[in-house]
């Protein structure tokens, strides 16, 4: 549809015509804001936390550990120079030698979801599998943030995700996966 519109605009004398071919689906999947009557369906983007610690594959584990724990997290995501998620560092990795590089201990290819996915069905799947956290990326794999199951559950029941952040381990500003 948009290629035909772009051609018409050129015919009408517009000098700089661009076609955003990926369209609104791509925009929503990236978690960018939209205007209009939003669906009553709650989306992954509604509960995504963008502040998850990140690391590059060639970093030393010790530096990542310090940065991650200082931020109140017990895991980090590994991204390449383009921001694409390439791995995940869970707490078990911290027990390794701090001198190892991230790529030596990370779990490659973590499961990812799109920001415009419906929240309810995803949470059901997370509950069944005992998954506490999933990574949210654009369709191209670029990191947007993470979805914590506890955040999503609270949002679906009408409570603020921020309350969970505080209530989860009784220590404001820190979160611990259940």
């Amino acid at each position, binding site marked *: 549809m948009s290629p035909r*519109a772009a051609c*018409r605009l050129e015919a009408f004398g517009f000098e700089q015509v*661009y076609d955003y071919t990926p369209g609104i689906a791509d925009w*929503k999947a990236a978690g960018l804001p939209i205007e209009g009557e939003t*669906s009553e369906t709650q989306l992954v983007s509604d509960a995504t936390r963008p502040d998850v610690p990140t690391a590059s594959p060639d970093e030393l584990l010790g530096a990542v550990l310090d940065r991650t724990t200082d931020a109140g997290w017990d895991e980090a995501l590994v991204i390449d120079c383009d921001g694409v998620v390439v791995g995940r560092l869970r707490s078990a990795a911290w027990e390794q030698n701090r001198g190892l590089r991230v790529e030596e201990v990370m779990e490659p290819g973590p499961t990812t979801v799109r920001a415009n996915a419906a929240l309810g069905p995803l949470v059901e799947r997370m509950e069944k599998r005992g998954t506490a956290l999933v990574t949210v990326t654009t369709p191209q794999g670029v990191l947007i943030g993470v979805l914590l199951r506890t955040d999503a559950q609270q949002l679906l029941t009408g409570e603020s995700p921020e309350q969970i952040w505080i209530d989860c381990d009784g220590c404001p500003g820190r979160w611990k996966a259940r």
Partner: protein
Amino acid sequence: MVTNIDRYALLSLLDQGAVVLDVLPESEYGSGHIPGALNIPLRGLDAEAVAGLHRDKPVVVY
């Protein structure tokens, strides 16, 4: 000549004041569109519909 762009280029064009045209049907536009986008459904996209737009500014359609 029409240039196909990705999201990053669109964001850059928005910073430059580009006009965004949503050519989807009104119902789809109403259910969510890029902030600031104007809705001119494709079947209504004629010279009269775009008469008020500046022809020397970048226009992005989707």
